[in-house]
């Protein structure tokens, strides 16, 4: 018997950002109707799992939630995240061949530091999954392909300096859509150059050019990267009927893409054509993952030849694909000191806007350049929400692959930062020992989230 495709369907019928927000109860209602009426859950190729809750600890491994995880996540977030971890466990154990989490709320706009909700996201489900896979299952090399119409800026932010995560995002050109980033020159930091690839597509691009990008860039790069696991951030707002996007993809093309990429895990992200796209796209993706004929799935108003692409735009995409392939192929021959300088730290300044919560954040991110490991990262962040006084934090993250020198250096910096008057909170995210600390300046108190005992033993350096 062939292995099944695992599904977790969690429409959160009792959760909304607000009654009229696109992230409201209704979002997956018609998808529910479609997949239930088709009897998808009864198919012998499908196994439906129950959702479960992620722990606060799973979130702390990935994010710096200000001031604490509990302030940034609701139970719905924990269920969406936990459902993905459930499917990951089942994929890794070999119980299922792949899994699809049709869950809400989404997460790909959530960055490492979380002051509030941006782009409908509070916590990044894929990033939490990656950190979990590494800690729980020892999986290191992972590829994430983001097929949402919006740039997966949160995921990019979190893995920008991680050489073991390949992040490819194709999306509508940032000059024409939220969040305004994801250009082809955003390629990752000095330690992870070309492990971030962005393909901004001009509005109006349809299935043919979508497949061109997949066949000529996404698939060859993913194959060469040789990941242990492939994740698809399966946003569906590239669909031709999406109210937020201006692309022209069909349900069938989403399924073709899924069949080609063969992700081990697919995670629903955006997609707000809740009637005209989601029921069909979700159904098509499920069938594609399960290896079932999806050729009879089609939108009621679609007919072949409905969309004509502009030849100039197509040529523009072809050129960009060629350019990016070249960057990928020559990624090890680059003189990094020319691009990134040659200091002890590589740093970037970021201005982050939280559209849902109207928060403005300024960040200074510094990466310790190290020949032995990817280096720790420090982030000084200051965020203002409306009138109240801004919140200042300092955060340090030590990667799982950290060397001894970086590890102890990072702790020195943590101790120094705790003494600095300008920070309200100081965070230490030590993925090496799986311990997460928050120092609350006003109380002079340190909170520690302790790791999974059985794994902490293996990694403890104390």
């Amino acid at each position: 018997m062939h292995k099944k495709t695992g599904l977790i369907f969690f429409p959160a019928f009792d959760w909304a950002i607000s009654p009229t927000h696109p992230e409201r109860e209704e979002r997956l209602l018609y998808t529910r109707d479609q997949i239930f009426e088709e009897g998808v859950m009864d198919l012998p190729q499908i196994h439906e799992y129950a959702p479960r809750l992620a722990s606060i600890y799973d979130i702390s491994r990935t994010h710096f939630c200000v001031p604490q995880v509990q302030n940034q996540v609701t139970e719905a977030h924990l269920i969406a995240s936990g459902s993905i971890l459930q499917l990951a466990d089942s994929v890794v154990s070999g119980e299922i061949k792949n899994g699809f989490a049709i869950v809400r709320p989404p997460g790909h706009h959530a960055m490492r530091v979380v002051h509030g909700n941006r782009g409908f996201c509070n916590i990044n489900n894929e990033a939490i999954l990656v950190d979990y896979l590494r800690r729980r299952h020892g999986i290191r090399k992972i590829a994430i392909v983001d097929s949402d119409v919006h740039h997966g800026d949160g995921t990019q932010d979190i893995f920008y300096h991680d050489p073991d995560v390949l992040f490819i995002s194709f999306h509508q050109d940032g000059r024409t859509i939220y969040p305004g980033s994801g250009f082809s020159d955003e390629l990752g930091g000095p330690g992870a150059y070309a492990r971030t690839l962005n393909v901004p597509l001009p509005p109006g691009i349809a299935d043919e050019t979508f497949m061109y990008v997949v066949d000529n860039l996404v698939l060859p790069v993913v194959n060469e990267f040789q990941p242990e696991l492939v994740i698809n951030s399966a946003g569906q707002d590239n669909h031709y009927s999406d109210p937020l996007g201006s692309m022209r993809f069909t349900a069938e093309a989403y399924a073709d893409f899924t069949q080609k990429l063969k992700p081990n895990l697919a995670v629903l992200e955006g997609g707000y054509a809740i009637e005209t796209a989601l029921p069909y796209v979700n159904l098509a993706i499920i069938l594609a993952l399960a290896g079932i004929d999806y050729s009879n799935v089609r939108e009621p108003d679609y007919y072949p030849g409905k969309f004509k692409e502009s030849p100039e735009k197509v040529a523009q995409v072809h050129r960009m694909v060629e350019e990016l392939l070249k960057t990928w192929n020559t990624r090890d021959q680059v003189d990094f000191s020319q691009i990134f300088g040659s200091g002890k730290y590589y740093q970037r300044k970021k201005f982050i806007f939280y559209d849902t919560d109207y928060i403005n954040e300024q960040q200074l991110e510094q990466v310790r350049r190290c020949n032995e490991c990817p280096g720790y990262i420090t982030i000084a962040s200051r965020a203002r929400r409306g009138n109240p006084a801004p919140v200042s934090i300092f955060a340090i993250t030590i990667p799982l692959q950290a060397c001894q020198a970086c590890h102890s250096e990072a702790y020195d910096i943590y101790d120094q930062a705790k003494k600095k008057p300008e920070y309200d909170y100081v965070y230490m995210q030590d993925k090496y020992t799986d311990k997460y600390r928050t120092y609350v300046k006003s109380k002079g108190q340190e909170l520690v989230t302790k790791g999974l005992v059985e794994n902490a033993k293996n990694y403890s350096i104390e």
Partner: protein
Amino acid sequence: MYIGIDVGGTSTNAVLLDNGLVRDSVTVPSSADIITSLLEALDKIMTNVTAESIERVVLSTTLITNLIAEKKYTPVGLILIPGPGLSHEYYQFHTDTLIISGAIDYRGREIMPLNDDEIEKAINILSTKGYKKVAVVGKFSVRNNKHEQEIVSKVKCLQPDWHVEIGHQVAGQLNFPRRVVSTMLACATRDKYSFFVESVQAALTMRGIEGPVLILKADGGTMLLNKVTGVPIETIFSGPAASTLGVQALIPPGETAVVVDIGGTTTDLALILSGQPLLSSKGAPVYEQLTQVRALAVKSVAVGGDSLVERVGQEILVCPKRLGPPFCMGGPMPTPTDALRVLGLTGVGNAKQAVEAMEILGQPLGISHSEVAQRIINSVINVIVQEIENMFTQWEQEPAYRVWEVLQKRKERPNMVVGVGGGAAGFITQIAAKVGGSPVIPPYAPVANAIGAAVAIPTLQVNLRADTERGYYTIEQEGYQGKIEKTRFTEEDALLLADEWLKKRAEKYGLGNTVSNSEINHRDVFNMVRNWTTTGRIYDISVQTPRGIIGHIGAKDGFSNA
């Protein structure tokens, strides 16, 4: 007084309940004809009481189960309208299936019209092949039955004497393939069921019984024995439901228990969680095909007292088949019952023959007859215990679609392991020890199923879905679709409407106005927003009459709420 009768595969049990006590019980062997068995048991149980004193009779029969298992029905042709979606090759229902173009979407909008020529052609093909029964089922017909209705009127016009069954009237939930199976089986069994109903009613009238006569359903509810109301296939698998309800009546209220019904070839397992029998989250599977029949979660394990036991190499295996009665009762091969006899856990059969049966298995392996017996019992127990664990796990891992449902998920362990059925006595103590509950074999355990039938009450549900933007609503259980008259139709209005329909259904099911306290199963409200303005609401509301039984056997105040 109440009468409950369970017509099972091997025996028919009847009980007479009087003010919460079992006044009498009888068991007669089942004959080939269900009505004969039923009336034999009825006449015996009525020997000392008058017909006027019988307030109601509830039957549980294998009628539909047998009809379907033995395929004793004329074939049913299918006319389906699946539209786009899953490839049509997936619709294999082992009968002539004609696919008509046309499509309705999830909100009941027509997205592709029917084609009259195709319909006529389909009817002609079925007619040429000799079909006289047809099931007509469309995808999303529960949201809009227009296409189904149009095809049915065409059939009625061209073939007025055909028996037609319509999807939305048989199975109102979302799930097209299950709706097809349910409708096909409803079509297949309707006439035989009607014949059964007429015969039983005539026989009861002859005996002067005037109280209501009801039939038990797979979900443990009842429906009036009436050939027009309800769907016959809902009475499939009422046997396990009867046993479970019987146990519910025989143990104190509120208990969490496992019901272990060990028969000759199968063991049926059911769960009672905090006093309520667990319903299956999916519809009942009928011989490999899933239906939309609401049923108790019953797990059938292919092991029982008469199961064949064989030696294969060094192993002694309990096989999932029966070759006859136990060796100690003159059967051909060793069975678990022989093992029980050897260990003194049962008194049936001949002790010497039981030892002989164990020796047949043990001698080539050089092990004693008592050790063989212990091994057999252990393996039977292990299979059953494993399945009990699986049932609990499965229940804990049922999908949930709302935040509150995920948060209220709990773990439960049984306090009691209750044995009913012929083979239970010998096994139950050891099963309970492994599961971690106390073993119970209630009084009247052998007739628990008839008690279950006697205490069953009708449970009625109404699922209302109202779409204020489109201005219509549907009632799942009735296949009804109607207009929303009010311009501002609120959640309160939707609840009132659902309650109104519940009362209507109660009337139809002969419950009069007893539906005073309805329960809300769930109420989902979906704000519909298009272009940033609210354009309507979808209400998805489910109400039901309280589930339960008339009362518990031996309760101090009798059946007070009867």
